[in-house]
């Protein structure tokens, strides 16, 4: 009981409110512009999340983060989605070995929090080690 109460209280600081039971907490939306940043600083757009034979939607495999190029409902709220996207960029950077050019991935997230906005935040993956598979 104490653990559950702790988790409920933790939900007010945890963006995902895990085990804090705050369903349907927001009506927020978001959209992502994804770019690949090369070692020389060049920024290459990733239209529809496809590059070097990779497909964002296929690799993500989770409806909440698929097709973010168009305005989408933010599953569990904007803060949760931005956190998931942040981890997803890192995961993508680690799991796309055929891409030998990209230093890191960068996502510009434009969101509306409960129909207020737009607000913009930029997140990026960790740097990749280049040199080919």
């Amino acid at each position: 009981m104490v653990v559950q109460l702790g988790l409920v209280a933790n939900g007010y600081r945890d963006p995902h409110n895990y085990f804090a039971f705050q369903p349907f907490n927001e009506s927020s939306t978001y959209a992502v512009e994804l770019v690949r940043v090369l070692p020389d600083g060049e920024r290459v757009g990733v239209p529809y999340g496809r590059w070097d034979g990779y497909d964002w939607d296929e690799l993500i495999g989770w409806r909440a983060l698929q097709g973010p190029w168009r305005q989408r409902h933010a599953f569990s709220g904007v803060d949760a989605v931005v956190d998931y996207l942040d981890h997803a960029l890192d995961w993508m950077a680690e799991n796309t070995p055929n891409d030998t050019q990209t230093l890191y991935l960068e996502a510009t997230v434009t969101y509306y929090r409960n129909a207020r906005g737009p607000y913009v935040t930029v997140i990026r993956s960790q740097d990749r080690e280049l040199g080919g598979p």
Partner: protein
Amino acid sequence: MTATATPPSTADWRSRYRRWLDEVFDQPASVRAVAIARIALGPSVIWHLRPFLADALDGSTYLDVFQQKWWPWVPNAPAGLYVALLWVGVAAAVLMTVGLWSRAATWVTLTVVAYNFFLSETHFRHNRAFLIILLAGVALCDNGRVLSLDARRRQPPDDRALVWPVWLLRFEAAAIYFASGFSKLIDPDWVGGRVMHDRTLRYQDDARDALGDTLGDPILEVLTARAFQWVLSPVAVATELFIAFGIWFRRTRLAAVWVAVAFHVGIEVSAQVEVFSVIAIGALAIWAIPSTRDRTLVTPSRWVRWFDWMARFDITVVPGASWRMVDRDGTVLEGQQARQFVRTRLPATFLFSRFWRYP
């Protein structure tokens, strides 16, 4: 002469508290309600595992897509073992429902569902968290003593066991309604109708597709009105809080259960919540007082036996007799009153009956 009521003294409260602790931790009571929850959870688990199995049949598992680990020490199962575990979960869920090796099957089901859940944060959903909590509560109880093949094979002397997990489940269930309602109550966007209004506007085309233009247009005209959501949102918050508190008290429990069923049906119709509605309605069984056949009923109808899943009555069927029911406190109801009371206590009919108490 006038009798004045004296407030309970500290000693009275202590004595009541001790009695309650005894009741919770030491006194065996009927686990029939837990058995009903067990039966309802089996199909829910299979429905919950279905998309993971469908992906596996298409040749894809969690290892092939984005995974965000809860904790680094949770081991990743190789694809073959993972798929086998999912099928073990399905088999255990079936055994759980029919009540064969009930308790072991419930533990295995819980293990599989929890392992799959904790493989990746992307597997998190509120309904899945609730499913795990319910499975854990049911597993902690000796849930196979009734309504199970185990009970047929072993024929235990009665359906009683320690029921402290039921109290834990009650707390969890109430906490969920409270957490959800309270978080919305303190959010001005929610309680003021902004969240609901915006969501309704966004999904109105889906609703129109489902309802058709003739029916959809007038309904959506109401639903998308800002004023309507301004009223509906606080009502929704009040509903959750009423369930969270009302379900604890005998006088309001039946009303809270009724409201909860209507609430979950409403959610199921208007949103995609996976197994939440089914398990939340199934979990309402745990609020039944854990004693069985402590009311006597004489009735000419055989149907009462078929619908008395919670074993609320010690039933004697006498063809041609009039209805007569003796309540726990010795109150005797006859005829129409008895029949009406019985309807309020049967899971299949109580929703359509009056829910206030009889004198």
